[in-house]
């Protein structure tokens, strides 16, 4: 594929007074002027909904500006779709990787632009080409491995190689580190620097300010659709960037007194899970006491989802026992788990955390719609449902003009508030909070943190599952690490624990012995139910 010619001088990509108004009336980007010269790593930061993704989509042709012009290679361009962006040398690696799982790495890299003649693909050339690109860029991949069998990190490198194969001169990376361990992140950064030194322009979207400081040459900050400013990374601190992002000083450090754990609320013994799909779990033993937050770290897909769903009653364990306040949860259905005092903020709020077309009021009562004060003698009182919603909307600062608004119309952080409001207002003995701040803005993030700590201090046991190590280390009183469905580390004191250190356990480089993992746990056998042990 031949790239269209670029102008000799000028920025690699630029936006001139670009505005994007969506059909539903949301103005996502407002008169943005942005210039990125060739050979620069430019970070674009901002809260969720600040417009950075929309701006990037316009550079990649996925969205068209409502007003203003997009410049690539120094000239105004009309990008009708990704194909025209690619033809101009713009490549994008999305947050959700877009590869064919059953193809090999090499097949994915060359897909659409295959080497070969007369309609036939030359598989050997594809592998060679991939290997050479990997060699040049420092993005290590195994060209012959099938994508579904390789790590998330390698999938991401495959995506980047795919862009390189299409002769990208501008690379847009949308939150590339969200799925990576600290070690993989470092490797990625090294490769990105190498690409930059070879003349590549990199647009790096992130909200992790520490990483932005590490990788970028300059930082552009967006807020509420507008470009607030661009600063040289050397002159910026995380604090100054954060205040630019939110428009005022806002720290994410949550004030939190030391935990005062009391009796054991959740007792998990020898928990195993085997199923046709999903990560299996093997012999998990741990306790969570009332009044403490126990974090669960791990690279995504190492059993966190399965563990959360088993504890919430959505899946049945194959072996082992789960006790909540001494009650065996085996044989309870989901409603039974909820009655026993389990609250669950699911990891994917769009999948099962909410009914998007139903109203806020209806979304708030799914676990309590059949009992007083909402329902009596088989009659559900809409007035009571509405009053219940008004109360929670006030208490949890849910932003809406009315309880009858369908939750589809809410932004991510606001929708998450609806879910957290529902789960916390049930007064759970155990709260399972899975990816509770994923895709929410900083204001909502801080709100969630405060609520979790408040729930802890009110005597709830909190199991915090997150892909965000900063969040885990900031909130957890104790920390567990899951790898391949096993517990591989347990830190009873998280003070002084670094992300890097936890990363070693997440990767399986280090591992705690069984003695350390199970110290202080009573009855480690999960034999048949003994009526005398409900203490």
């Amino acid at each position, binding site marked *: 594929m031949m790239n269209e010619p670029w102008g000799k001088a000028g920025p690699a990509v630029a936006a001139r007074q670009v505005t994007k108004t969506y059909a539903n009336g949301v*103005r996502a980007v407002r008169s943005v002027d942005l210039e990125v010269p060739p050979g620069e790593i430019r970070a674009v930061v901002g809260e969720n909904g600040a417009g950075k993704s929309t701006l990037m989509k316009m550079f990649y042709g996925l969205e068209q500006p409502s007003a203003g012009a997009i410049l690539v290679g120094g000239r105004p361009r009309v990008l009708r779709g990704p194909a025209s962006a690619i033809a101009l040398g713009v490549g994008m690696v999305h947050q959700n990787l877009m590869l064919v799982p059953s193809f090999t790495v090499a097949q994915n890299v060359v897909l659409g632009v295959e080497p070969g003649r007369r309609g036939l693909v030359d598989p050997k050339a594809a592998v060679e080409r991939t290997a050479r690109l990997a060699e040049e860029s420092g993005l290590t991949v195994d060209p012959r491995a099938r994508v579904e069998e390789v790590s998330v990190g390698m999938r991401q490198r495959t995506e980047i190689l795919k862009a390189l194969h299409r002769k990208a001169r501008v690379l847009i990376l949308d939150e590339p580190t969200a799925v990576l361990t600290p070690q993989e992140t470092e490797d990625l950064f090294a490769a990105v620097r190498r690409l930059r030194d070879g003349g590549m322009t990199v647009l790096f979207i992130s909200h992790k300010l520490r990483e932005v400081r590490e990788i970028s040459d300059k930082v552009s900050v967006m807020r509420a659709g507008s470009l607030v400013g661009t600063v040289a990374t050397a002159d910026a601190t995380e604090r100054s960037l954060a205040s630019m992002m939110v428009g005022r000083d806002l720290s994410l450090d949550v004030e939190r007194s030391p935990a005062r754990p009391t009796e054991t609320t959740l007792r998990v013994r020898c928990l195993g899970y085997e199923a046709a799909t999903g990560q299996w779990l093997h012999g998990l033993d741990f306790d969570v006491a009332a009044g403490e937050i126990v974090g669960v770290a791990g690279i995504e897909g190492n059993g966190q989802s399965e563990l959360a769903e088993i504890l919430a009653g959505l899946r049945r364990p194959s072996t082992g026992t789960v006790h909540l306040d001494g009650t065996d949860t085996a044989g309870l259905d989901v409603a039974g788990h909820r009655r026993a005092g389990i609250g669950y903020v*699911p990891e994917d709020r769009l999948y099962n955390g909410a009914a998007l077309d139903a109203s806020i009021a209806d979304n708030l009562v799914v676990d309590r719609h059949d009992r007083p004060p909402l329902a009596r003698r088989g009659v559900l009182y*809409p007035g009571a449902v509405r009053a219940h919603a008004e109360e929670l909307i006030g208490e949890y600062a849910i932003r809406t003009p009315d309880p009858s608004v369908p939750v589809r119309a809410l932004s991510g952080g606001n929708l998450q508030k609806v879910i957290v409001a529902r789960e916390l207002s049930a007064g759970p003995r155990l709260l399972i909070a899975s990816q509770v701040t994923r895709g929410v803005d900083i204001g909502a993030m801080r709100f969630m943190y405060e609520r979790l700590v408040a729930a802890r201090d009110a005597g709830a046991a909190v199991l915090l599952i997150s892909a965000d190590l900063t969040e885990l280390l900031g909130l957890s009183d104790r920390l567990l690490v899951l790898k391949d469905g096993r517990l591989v580390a347990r830190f009873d004191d998280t003070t002084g624990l670094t992300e890097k250190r936890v990363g070693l356990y997440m990767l399986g480089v280090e591992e705690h012995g069984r003695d350390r993992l199970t110290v202080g746990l009573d009855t480690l056998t999960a034999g048949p139910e003994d009526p005398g042990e409900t203490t």
Partner: protein
Amino acid sequence: MTTTAMTAIETEDRRQYRATRRRDFAVDLSMALATILAALVIGFLVMLATGNDPVRAYEVMLTGPLERSFRVGRWLEDATTLTLLGLSVAIPFRARQISLGAESQVYAGALAAATVAIFVPLPPVVAVIVPMAAAAAAGAGMGLVPGAMKARLGANEIVATLMLNAIVVRVYDYLVNGPLKESGSSAVHSKSIQQDSALTPLSDWFGVPLGRANIGFGVMLLTAAALWLLITRTPLGYRIRMTGANPDFAAYGGIRVPRVIEWSFVIGGAVAGLAGAHLVQGVYGRLEPGLAGSLAFEGIVVALLARNNPLVVVIAGLFYSYLRAGGDIMEQQTDVGTEIVVVIQAVIVLLVTAQALPNLLKRRIARRQVGVR
């Protein structure tokens, strides 16, 4: 909190939001009327193109059903059956179950009602109620079969209901042509029901001839109201709505989704069974081959037009029946056949189900408001 990341609705206050809702409702309503008008225009053009007199045809079609009292009766009788069948599928549709089983349910209901009303001697009033209850029970049972297959075994409910239709309709035909056929009659039909089991004709009440229209019309209105209350005012209705909105969310919230699915089929089946009872006890007074005609299928259309809201189903059923009745009169009195009514109905269905017009207009309005702001 912060000023960022607001969606359009989040920036509104309650007054603005209510205004927006009123505006959207007005748009919906006027678009419904515009849709009907557009369909009539297309029908007009078709008639013109085929060399007919569209003005005369429309005059007959649109005023015909109201011209004589017995034509009004014909309309109401048809609307009763059609609306009940529309309601019967609206309930499973609310649970996002594509039930096409109204046909098997209406015939099962008709068989049950006829069997009781012909052979079981009962005192007055009870003689009306018991066959209807039997019909509802038979329809409910006919709904439970595909409902349980879907909920417990994961069968595809479309296939299950269609196949059950095929079986039940054949069994019905066999019974009407065989064991239940009135002996000594040359035409194929069953014996007539006992006089006490007949639904009282509306003619007796209003003193004008209203054909075969009967108090089944009132039963239909009550059923619609009851189903509306069920959906909006009961925990089961809530579970049906949430299962329809997002079954994974319902399951996560502790709702037993399979049971809700079964209930939605059973309730829908019972209502379709009532439609069968109405046909036997109110319209024909006996079993006849194919007595439900194509109404079971058209009930689905009515439910879709009404977006599965029980109260709107009544309006849609009345409207749809009016077109049917008008089409019949048009065919009798002009050269234009009922096919043109089918064309009009089809255009309406296409426009309404595609939701094309209202969405386009709402988007326009939203965009203009943003521009003004």
